[in-house]
């Protein structure tokens, strides 16, 4: 491990003398840089998709999953008492962060799409609604139902499960897809860089032969190739990630509409991912090329 690290450091600091012994191989170089760039670009997009889905899931979680509603249908004169009783029950329920009865204005607003804005809420036998906000752990739905049934006969707990599940399910599937795509992309990148390095090494059998003839050690020859390919992959990935970043920044951000994909982008610390992806690709390239170089050198002895 220590050797690997010192090797990696040595590689980055560099041994330009050794590197000169490897011919520039124009097309392979471009291939490596381009592959790394394209793959980094795709990774960043997949990542952005995943992060957006994460946020979406979070949003749904906080908007739907962590709020429940208790509906209290009771004759007008008992309503206030039952609401108070329900609130008392909720106060002593573990997992409930807060609970409050909706005001008439709020209830009117909620019902506006159905009844128009002029609904005489106070004169109607409309159930009273209590908004319950869960803690992140959530509460025990069955337990709470049982307690409410006992103490507040007119109360019905609606934890929005019915609405939440397909959405959370969709979000988690989309997120999973994003991560699978990233894993696939990084894996493919590693393989492509390995194969590019191997074909460069195979095409440079003559170089290896000459270097051997004049007494170069395997490590010396390998370093030259590894350094080149790692730096190329790193450079390509950086370019790709930056381009992707720019592309994402210029995507019309439709935050105002509140729609589904509005959040396709990075926020705050998430931008660091733009750096992490090239580094990851660089590390993959380092190990992939190193293994390839040592293998080819062993085979060609």
């Amino acid at each position: 491990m220590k050797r690997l690290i010192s090797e990696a450091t040595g590689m980055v600091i560099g041994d330009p003398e050794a590197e000169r012994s490897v011919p520039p191989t124009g097309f392979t170089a471009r291939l490596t840089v381009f592959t790394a760039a394209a793959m980094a670009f795709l990774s960043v997009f997949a990542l952005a998709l995943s992060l957006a889905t994460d946020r979406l899931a979070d949003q749904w979680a906080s908007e739907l999953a962590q709020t429940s509603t208790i509906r209290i249908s009771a004759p007008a004169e008992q309503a206030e008492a039952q609401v108070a009783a329900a609130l008392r029950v909720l106060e002593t329920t573990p997992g409930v962060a807060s609970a409050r009865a909706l005001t008439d204005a709020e209830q009117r607003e909620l019902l506006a799409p159905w009844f128009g804005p002029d609904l005489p809420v106070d004169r109607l036998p409309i159930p009273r609604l209590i908004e319950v906000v869960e803690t992140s752990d959530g509460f025990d739905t069955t337990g709470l139902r049982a307690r409410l049934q006992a103490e507040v006969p007119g109360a019905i707990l609606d934890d929005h499960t019915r609405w939440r599940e397909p959405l959370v399910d969709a979000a988690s599937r989309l997120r999973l897809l994003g991560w699978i795509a990233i894993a696939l992309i990084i894996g493919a990148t590693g393989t492509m860089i390995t194969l590019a390095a191997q074909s460069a090494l195979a095409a440079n059998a003559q170089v290896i032969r000459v270097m051997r003839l004049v007494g170069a050690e395997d490590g010396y020859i390998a370093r030259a190739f590894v350094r080149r390919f790692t730096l190329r992959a790193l450079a390509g990935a950086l370019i790709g990630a930056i381009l992707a970043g720019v592309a994402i920044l210029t995507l019309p951000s439709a935050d105002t509409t509140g729609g589904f994909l509005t959040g396709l982008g990075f926020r705050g610390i998430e931008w660091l991912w733009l750096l992490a992806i090239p580094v990851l690709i660089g590390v993959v390239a380092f190990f992939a090329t190193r293994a390839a170089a040592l293998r080819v050198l062993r085979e060609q002895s």
Partner: protein
Amino acid sequence: MIELEDVAYSYGGAELFSGLSLKLAPGSFHFLTGPSGAGKTTLLKLCYGELLATSGHVMLFEQDAARLDRDQVAMMRRRIGVVHQDCQFLDHLTMRDNVALPLTVSGRSSAFSADLDDLLAWVGLRRQADQLPPQLSGGERQRAALARAVIMSPDVIIADEPTGNIDWEMSQRLLSLLIELNKMGKTILVATHDLNLIRAAKSQVSSRVLRLKDRQLQQAGAEL
């Protein structure tokens, strides 16, 4: 320096030679001749560790070649200057860099740069120093290969047909370079089919001529 004892080699099929023994004493000068395909190049490769004998022992600088690991072989190669039969260069480096490659690889780039120019002049490549290998004539490449073989001032110099593409005059000059090195105490082994070259050498230095033929290594003499 280099000792072969009862050595046999085969590329998988029939044995090229067997029971072959050879001892290159320090400061000796050997020629190796024999018909094309007899195994001269193969024998030389055994002497610098590119091939391992199928049986018998090859001792390089008192070490068993079969027991050297890959890095030790690399180290040993730095003490042996080799002129390969099809001279091999790095096509993207100038001849100057190619000839200096053994220095670069062993980490002594700058030390010998004056010597480098002298050496290039000696083999008649001063003008071509900045050309790339594919831009050289066949003979020029062979001379460059010899220059590369001697630049590290190695203990042993092994040359495989170093004058195959070179005119007689230049051959004489390369020969005198080798003879000079031999007089400085270097051990020399040259494979060649140019009997005139051997004859010319015989008059200037005490050398032995070995002949590889019909799977045997014999001392040649009378016919030269």
